[in-house]
């Protein structure tokens, strides 16, 4: 399916969706965080979309917003899409978990929580996995400071 066809279908799944291609091969769609879970579950269940495989879930720090990028693929229909969601709240950033839609999101969300501090509603057990449990701060945020170990250029 071409990106234009994808866009025509995905437009109907929610409101206030922004589409870009950013010169890349994938169609990018930015969704409001309130609609994230409903749009994601429709992306998976829609008979013409069938995005059954989240092949990459990435945390991002677009200062000042924090966000998550979902790379989705349909293994049956062989098309891909990129879903972006962001939140302006740096103190207590919260998004909905999609682990009930794609199980792989469970560990990806743990990683994003570990490094960006984004909390996920309904996640089964949010905890530090790479860093030690007593770690303070979120090292992949742009404003993270570690004076002992890092040379600030």
């Amino acid at each position, binding site marked *: 399916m071409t990106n234009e066809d994808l866009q025509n279908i995905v437009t109907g799944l929610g409101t206030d969706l922004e589409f870009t291609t950013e010169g890349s091969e994938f169609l990018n769609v930015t969704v409001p965080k309130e609609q994230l879970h409903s749009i994601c579950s429709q992306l998976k269940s829609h008979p013409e979309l069938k995005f059954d495989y989240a092949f990459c879930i990435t945390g991002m720090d677009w200062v000042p917003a924090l966000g998550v990028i979902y790379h989705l693929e349909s293994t049956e229909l062989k098309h891909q899409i990129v879903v972006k969601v962001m939140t302006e709240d740096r103190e207590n950033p919260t998004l909905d978990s999609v682990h009930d839609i794609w199980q792989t999101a469970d560990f990806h969300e743990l990683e994003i929580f570990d490094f960006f501090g984004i909390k996920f509603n309904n996640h089964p057990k949010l905890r530090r996995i*790479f*860093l*030690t449990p007593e770690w303070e701060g979120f*090292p992949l945020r742009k404003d*993270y400071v*570690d004076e002992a*170990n*890092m*040379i600030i250029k």
Partner: protein
Amino acid sequence: MGVDKKRYLSQLEEDGLKQVVPADFPGKIIPGGNGGNIVVTTLDSVINWGRANSLWSLYFGTSCCAIEMMQTGAARHDYSRFGFEVARASARQADLIIIAGTIVNKMGPVLRRLYDQMAEPKYVIAMGACAISGGPFYYNSYSVIKGADHVIPVDVYVPGCPPRPEALLEGMIMLQQKIKTENMAKKVNPIDGFDEGK
């Protein structure tokens, strides 16, 4: 060895020194220097020969240097030729850690524990830039230890990113040469005082 050493009681007496033996000492005293040193140094060289030519290394590859270490052990370079016969998965059976890769903060205590579990004498080779100084890529990071010698004492450093198998072999042979000069009487354990910054 030492040229001007006074080895015999007769030499001591020339200088007016005398071996002091308590009057009530119950046993018989056999003076030192009657060939005893020769036995000890010969024993040293036999033991060192055995140790140097039978170094079993621990499987400890934390990043890409491990690939080069495996290549050093594989058929083309084959470190068994020099006595690094096998690699062991248990610290209890290993004499040598080849630190092949980056040591992160979370790995540091594990590395130290593995080192402490090894039986003495134990040796460490820091292979590659990451094990020596934190590495060319990750040194400016919240997570990386800037050199494995912050955690355990290192005998031989092999620079490179990663070092070629020939370089690692050179480092291993240098370690063997170091072991062959060891002296049982003067041996110091490198971990003694290490935590105090010695």
